[in-house]
């Protein structure tokens, strides 16, 4: 009976038909865990699929994206990857949000020799210390965002710095690289305090109180999501951010900025996505298409979803085949248009040169926005090729 159950369970999961005139991309993300980011993300890639197929598909074949939820667990992501590769016969894998899931799928891709285009995970490891030839990554990494923010932070007169970051790999590496880069530029800086609230469980009152007690002139913040909201509320009430400069990863992303509404702290130096003030033809076209289709404004997730599938399609089109080796050859050094302007997937580490907008937070009509925004190209904030080669294991 044990086996009968096994057999039935498994039979239900077995693969079915496959058509010859479609190209399938397998997509995985934490839909049920992080709906605030992944809902706009899904809308983004759905728009891309629609545009690609309306323009005739990929080399005459229709593009189909098969999407799976990983429930925020690396083990589930691997089950999904396996299903996509073994029974859906996808040409490549794409997606993922959390760094640990990105790494798990990347390792899977390396093992099974499948092409993987990581969309969102930010960890530097994915293209450097744990990089492999099957994995490419779209978003600007931790290092790149830190370098963009350090450029602004170094201009501040502040010498005493404190940090607040979620206590897991992402927070730890963001703080480490920011500290390293800023101290290199400004040897006169002192690091006076660090706070490591557990991710998703911040007890914001004590944290901001403790930071204030160290009396820093500037604060680096790496928290996001609900933790950020709590931190900002407590900090505002207690006046901790008053007369202090704050540099903050990700806070300008609409996903994290919008919930703050009129609570938005003013003058924070942030990375993000000011969709309301980008005036380029590429972005205008994207914005118009997105708003027409969904009657809603895009979030950063929408850009990531859209560009992931657009890039994947470009790679598939250039390769002219779904053979993994040909896909890698096509992707290395490939230039692709994006709503932020042309990006390139670097040959040396498979990192795309997609950049980010850096600016300051402000309030307009009771809503948080970014002002004084400048687009920073990813390519300008990466270490030298020699250094990258040292960071990355040889294939």
């Amino acid at each position: 009976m044990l086996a009968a159950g096994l057999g039935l369970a498994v039979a239900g999961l077995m693969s079915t038909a496959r058509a010859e005139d479609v190209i399938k991309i397998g997509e995985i993300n934490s839909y049920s865990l992080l709906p605030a980011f992944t809902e706009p993300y899904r809308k983004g890639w759905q728009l891309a699929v629609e545009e690609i197929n309306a323009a005739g598909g990929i080399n005459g074949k229709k593009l189909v994206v098969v999407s799976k939820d990983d429930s925020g667990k690396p083990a589930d992501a691997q089950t999904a990857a396996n299903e996509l590769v073994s029974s859906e016969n996808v040409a490549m894998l794409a997606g993922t949000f959390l760094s640990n899931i990105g790494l798990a799928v990347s390792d899977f891709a390396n093992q099974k020799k499948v092409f993987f285009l990581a969309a969102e995970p930010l960890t530097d490891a994915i293209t450097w210390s744990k990089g492999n030839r099957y994995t490419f990554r779209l978003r600007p990494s931790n290092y790149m965002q830190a370098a963009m923010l350090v450029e602004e932070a170094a201009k501040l007169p502040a010498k005493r710095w404190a940090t607040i970051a979620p206590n897991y790999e992402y927070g730890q590496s963001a703080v480490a690289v920011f500290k390293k880069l800023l101290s290199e530029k400004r040897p006169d800086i002192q690091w006076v305090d660090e706070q490591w609230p557990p991710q998703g469980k911040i007890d914001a009152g004590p944290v901001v109180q403790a930071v204030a007690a160290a009396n820093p002139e500037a604060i680096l913040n790496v928290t996001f999501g609900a933790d950020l909201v709590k931190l900002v509320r407590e900090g505002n009430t207690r006046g901790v951010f008053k007369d202090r400069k704050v540099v903050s990863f990700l806070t300008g992303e609409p996903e994290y900025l919008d919930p703050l509404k009129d609570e938005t702290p003013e003058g924070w130096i942030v990375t993000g996505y000011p969709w309301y003030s980008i005036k380029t033809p590429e972005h205008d076209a994207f914005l118009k298409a997105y708003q027409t289709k969904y009657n809603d404004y895009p979030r950063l997730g929408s850009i990531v979803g859209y560009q992931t599938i657009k890039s994947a399609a470009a790679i598939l089109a250039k390769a002219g085949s779904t053979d993994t080796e040909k896909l890698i050859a096509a992707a290395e050094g490939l230039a692709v248009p994006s709503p932020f302007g042309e990006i390139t997937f670097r040959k040396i580490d498979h990192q795309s040169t997609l950049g980010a907008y850096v600016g300051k937070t402000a309030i307009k009509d009771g809503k948080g926005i970014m002002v004084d925004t400048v687009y920073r190209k990813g390519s300008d904030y990466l270490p030298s090729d020699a250094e990258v080669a040292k960071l990355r294991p040889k294939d």
Partner: protein
Amino acid sequence: MAFYFVQFLTGLASAASLFLVASGLSIIFGVTRIVNFAHGAFYMLGAYVAFTLTERLSGALGFWGGIVVAALVVAAIGVLVEIVLLRRIYHAPELFQLLATFGLTLMVEDLVVLIWGPDDLLGRRAPGFKGAVDFFGQNIPSYDLFLIALGPIVLGALWLLFQRTRWGILVRAATQDRDMVAALGVNQKWLFTSVFAVGVFLAALGGALQIPRDAVHHAMDLRIIVEVFVVVVIGGLGSILGAFVAAVLVSELNAFGILIFPTISLILIFLVMAVVLVVRPWGLFGRKEAPARRTPGLTVIPWRPLSSVERLASLAALTFAAMLPFVSGNYALNVGAEIAIFVIFAASLHFLMAVGGLASFGHAAYFGLGAYGVAFLAKMAGLPMIACLLLGPLLGALGAAVFGAFAVQLSGVYFAMLTLAFAQIVWSVAFQWVGVTGGDNGILGLWPETWAASPPHFYWLALGVTTLVVSVLRLITFSPFGYALRAMRDSPLRSESIGINGKRIQWTAFIIAGTTAGIGGALFAYLKGSVFPDNMGISLSVDALVMVLLGGVETVPGAIFGAIVYKALNIWLVSKTDLSKLVLGIFIVLIVVVFPKGIVGVVESFMHRRRAAAPKAAALSAKIEGAQ
């Protein structure tokens, strides 16, 4: 100095909300003996409903009225849940209510996203408490002062309610001795319902009061539920004063812990809980539970080894399972291997729960330790796969030996909570000791060697190991050791008086269960090619509990069926829908209502009835019952 005082006050403010939620859980448990996993979900619903109401209603009255109405609305939902669902299962085996409320929690998590959308919501600030009070140059939010005052007020109100009203006297009596209250002719039905309503009201109020200081989002429930369990257990189950003191203690630990141990704050409260439970097993203000009057053994159909027909059927089933690689694709085999591994995991917990009567809430710790054992051996020592598979589980055995020595000194919910504390400590170490474990990013690249790499080979390996483990566990169950263990489960006093060294027997069982879980973990590491702290997280422990309860805790083969059904369904749902939690939750709740003894339990009692109908079998079963 002013800083430390303000930090102390901030801790007190956080304690207020925690106390509200924890006291509700404590009251519910005290009377109904339900470990209400859905308490966090009611807390979250309180916040969501309060958000909607306070956004619609204007002015101070609208805000404060909205908070109270929200708590009342959610309490009404609680009453509905109690009447429709829980009333049907009070007589099901212990912990079955946990399964039902877990199913509810899953449903609520998806429902709030469906109703309120995916974005984090920021509520209004409380009218009259928007600013801060200056205290020697430090700012204290006035809302914090309000919360600090609220805590003792609620404590006082609850004290009056329980000491000065007839209802309170009945509730206290039921907390002390439920059977006696029933014997005195009190209508327990409505007593239970009202207690549940009060408990849920407190949880929802705790959630609603969070909106001026927190974002409302769909993961609030899990964030609070574990902390609340900790508070209730430290304070002593059923004790409201205990919940208050423990809430203050935990919040102050959080507030000052970040100053002294900024990076290990996660471990701290679980360490404290473990110490409290080891020193004072019933919590700071708890009392030793009166022994249950119902002997569990009487409700169970006596276990017996498989008959020869059943043996043949099992063999046939196994053969069928072994043929799978000839008919199905790689993905199916991959899923088959995963299910087989979870059969090991569930069987090991089931052994501890059903045979030993020890329900562990932290069984994933040993699964995860086995997986990390493999990772360390393969990555650091560079051992070959066979050696890793054989030695890796020893880390699980070691963990079980150490933690089990403490845990088996306790029983019931306290045992469960101590195992949870140990599991959380192990998880925190894996999560935060980045240098050794890779932290959240885990350890990658643990793929099987060539001989086991192909999906059919790995499937056969997993199936073989599973068959071996399950057979051995069955063998132990029906061995003299198994009988001694069951004797301890059914009556510790009697078994000790005939010379059974009960604690040692239970400790051995704990180590056996930990080792077998470790075997599952070791295989899992190779199946996934990686290990993550997730492998020992709470959700995995809960999964194991669900599998065991689903299959039927009072049966011998229950875990196998529970694991197959739950895991297959889970994988299938996650693959097919984004609302997997909603569907899975509904499924679990339905199962609980329809099969309150678990899937195998229901089948067994059906077979038993049929057998009893035959005259010869009737005589036999009469003999068995006479012997009992």
